[in-house]
């Protein structure tokens, strides 16, 4: 049965692209979750919806406009946090609704929803072309290479921004680089699970991986494994049962998370005992 499914070109492309997207979402997601940017993916995906609408409205390939608008949205979000003291989740909310509102206006002015728009909203991994597959692979390779090379700097920034600054890291520049990478990750991954479910792939594998209580590299490895297992089994199951792959992938990830948390509660995964540090007053 599996061999039969793999003999189809569209399944091969779906699996290859899906694995690539699963890897970048989980790797980028580790930093996003730890920086309490869990809903960043959701916010940027909604901005991408505005970007897709701009492309469809102007008759330009929607993915390009989605990339441009999402990166601008991500940078705007970062600026909003830095210069206005607005908290992370509020800044995401502002950017999210702005992107969505632009999309709704453009869609309504161009005569309503189209099949193209639906494929961006809910994902269309089984319909992607050879060119799309190559593009996803190239971008994913770039993101993984960048995150691997910059891992130490991003980890320091994620751990404690002030400590990173004292260590001489260019914190502002790194923050902008981080947001651009995250925006590219979200837009690249939209074809797999769609705008509405993208944050699931960013957040769920990482929450499950962190429950294992390992160090950074092992946590990233576990998160990537959970992500790839969810994507591959999700695509195959959706083929056999003729259901939407995006929803299936996300539900498998959720099932894995529940199983991991259950195993931890049952003592099958060693529980991490967090020693409470006494509260201290801050001097001067």
């Amino acid at each position, binding site marked *: 049965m599996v061999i039969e499914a793999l003999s189809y070109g569209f399944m091969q492309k779906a699996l290859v692209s899906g694995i690539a997207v699963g890897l970048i979402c989980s790797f980028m997601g580790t930093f996003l979750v730890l920086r309490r940017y869990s809903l960043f993916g959701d916010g940027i995906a909604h901005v991408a919806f505005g970007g897709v609408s701009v492309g469809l409205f102007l008759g330009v390939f929607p993915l390009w406009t989605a990339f441009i608008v999402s990166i601008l949205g991500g940078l705007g979000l970062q600026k909003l946090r830095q210069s206005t003291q607005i908290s992370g989740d509020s800044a995401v909310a502002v950017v999210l609704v702005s992107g969505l509102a632009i999309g709704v206006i453009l869609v309504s002015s161009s005569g309503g929803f189209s099949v193209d728009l639906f494929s961006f909203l809910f994902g269309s991994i089984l319909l992607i072309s050879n060119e799309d597959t190559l593009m996803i692979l190239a971008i994913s390779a770039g993101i993984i290479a960048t995150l691997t090379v910059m891992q130490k700097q991003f*980890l320091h920034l994620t751990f404690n921004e002030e400590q990173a600054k004292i260590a001489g890291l260019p914190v502002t520049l790194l923050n902008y680089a981080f947001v651009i990478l995250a925006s590219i990750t979200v837009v690249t991954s939209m074809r797999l699970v769609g705008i509405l479910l993208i944050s699931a792939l960013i957040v769920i594998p990482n929450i499950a991986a962190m429950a294992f209580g390992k160090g950074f590299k092992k946590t990233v490895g576990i998160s990537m494994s959970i992500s790839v297992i969810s994507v591959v089994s999700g695509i195959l199951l959706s083929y056999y049962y003729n259901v939407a792959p995006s929803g299936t992938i996300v539900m498998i990830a959720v099932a894995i998370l529940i199983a991991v948390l259950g195993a931890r509660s049952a003592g099958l995964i060693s529980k991490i005992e967090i020693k409470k540090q006494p509260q201290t007053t801050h001097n001067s």
Partner: protein
Amino acid sequence: MTSVLEVEDLSIGYNSHLAVDKISFDVAEGDLLGIVGPNGAGKTTLFRAILGLQPYSGKIKLFGFEGSKYRSLLPLIGYVPQKVAFEPNFPATVYDIVSMGVISDKKLVKGAKLIQQCGCCWDRIYKKIGNNDDKITEALKTVGLKSLRNRRIGELSGGELQRVFIAKSLVKDPLLLILDEPVTSVDVESQAKFYNVIKKINEENNITIIWSSHDLDAISKYANRVACMNRKLFFHGGKEEFFSDEELLKTYTESSMQMHMHNHDGH
């Protein structure tokens, strides 16, 4: 001999309030300077200015350098705050955290060359060039945490955590190590271990240290020089001079008590 750090007429204000008022002092190589002063005396603010995180008026020189040269030496300063805020479930081991302190060989060479310009020989920075894993192992050994290198940081005690942050500074063999009330949240037994580490790295590694603390006993035991401040600098000199001046000690104790009561009333 060039001082490691020179502070001249340093003032730092928040709105109309002066947190640090025209203070001047210097720190020579190998010094272990204990800074005492009540809560709100401006000690943390002073450290933030030295670390380039706080605007100020006056002069701060590192090996005689100001401006861009000073900033290029900043990564070679080690800093351990009272408490580092991080996610309790942060998936990092002791090794991961200490490795964050490793700085590039390029920065080390640049720093060493700069310091040589002022006539100082800083061979020990050159010794830090090379294998990062060796540097991390050596730093962990110095603070007595080699066996915990793969332990997740969320599982450590307050005292162990502070020693991890010292190790993070030691991997770059800092020109200057700043400790801002590092044992405030640490139990008494761990405090003793921590003080021994401070003494060891000052004496054996010849690392210059500035250390703020409310613990006068520890300062009298480990520091060789003392500065006493409460926005202004009241004293700067040898510890024998400070601890033999009963008037000064009385003033310090009274101002600490007043500040404590003020804070207590304020809450």
